């Protein structure tokens, strides 16, 4: 993972390459987090031995998401087998059902685009996906978003740092760690940025800590407002919960 000093402890620049909520690598995956991948990446994933997790882009995968078109549906007694294709390859996706779900009939049919969230499996060299969730995709925007996430995550995991476009700073003084922010950032926000940057923990900085460190500079209400504004501009993001913040690295 990244070994430059500007990245946070987890070795990733943010926003996180994993689906929200934030998951730091090494933690057990929760139900919610998944990584956006292509079928080609899944087919090429490697595994040290049959008990270890699969690896894509040098990083273990847990839950993954693909966005793909259903090319075939086979309804079996204990599971529904989908063959799906996302333009990069084709794979089997199996959704295990209990009896009650089977009787409802199948809403996902050939020709539909779906998002499949699940785990990669391999049997006798052949890869497949165990489906945890399958959701219909109705808008092309979802394809755009997914594939952009795929590219972003791939970059985040295969390069030491991401070069992010920033405005040319004009005499900005707060480049303590040699990062450059928009030159029109006001001193309050610059201080917030500095506080967040100084914290190497991927868990982020609690808003109360930010407020405390800035006591005397502004009222708590104003400081919280500034943090919100920085969120809206994509400069900071929430980490482990809505009270913890991290800063987007501009390197």
């Amino acid at each position: 993972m990244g070994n430059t000093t500007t990245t946070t402890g987890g070795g990733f620049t943010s926003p996180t390459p994993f689906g929200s909520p934030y998951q730091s690598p090494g933690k057990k995956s929760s139900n919610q987090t998944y990584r956006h991948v292509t079928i080609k990446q899944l087919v090429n994933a490697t595994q040290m031995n049959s008990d270890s997790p699969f690896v894509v882009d040098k990083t273990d995968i847990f839950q993954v998401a693909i966005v793909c078109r259903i090319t075939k549906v086979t309804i079996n007694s204990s599971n529904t087998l989908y063959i799906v294709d996302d333009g990069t390859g084709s794979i089997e996706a199996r959704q295990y059902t209990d009896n009650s779900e089977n009787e409802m009939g199948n809403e996902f049919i050939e020709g539909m685009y779906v998002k499949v969230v699940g785990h990669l499996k391999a049997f006798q060299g052949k890869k497949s996906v165990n489906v945890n969730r399958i959701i219909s995709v109705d808008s092309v925007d979802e394809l755009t978003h997914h594939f952009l996430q795929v590219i972003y995550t791939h970059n985040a995991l295969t390069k030491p740092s991401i070069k992010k476009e920033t405005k040319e700073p004009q005499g900005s003084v707060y480049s303590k760690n040699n990062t450059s922010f928009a030159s029109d950032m006001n001193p309050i926000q610059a201080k917030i940025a500095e506080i967040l940057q100084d914290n190497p923990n991927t868990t982020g900085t609690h808003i109360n800590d930010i407020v405390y460190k800035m006591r005397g500079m502004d009222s708590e209400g104003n400081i919280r407002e500034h943090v919100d504004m920085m969120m809206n501009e994509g400069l900071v993001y929430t980490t482990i919960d809505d009270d913890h913040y991290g800063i987007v690295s501009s390197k």
Partner: protein
Amino acid sequence: MNQQSTPRVNSNQLGNHIGGIVRLVGTIRSKTDSQAILETADKGQISILLQQGSECKPGVVEILGKVENVGTVREMAVSNFNPDFGNNGIDPDAEIYSEMVQVSEKYKEVF
């Protein structure tokens, strides 16, 4: 599983895929039973030769098809999508989609 690549392309890349199978996303501008004009996300006008009993509806679609020449694709399959995509000419969604397609070209190991 037969791993055939059916890449997502923009209309200006069709020349690189003659005889191959590609995915084109856009809006159907006109349609008969046998043929449709697809305005792609990158604002190309491509003739789609529809198959018998094609499920292609007017609106936003993805055409999976064989490239006959730089201006013509023969439909093999179609997927219909919500109509919220590049309809008014100033919608950024189509632009972003076509840029995504362009960027994905650089990541052959992923796409």
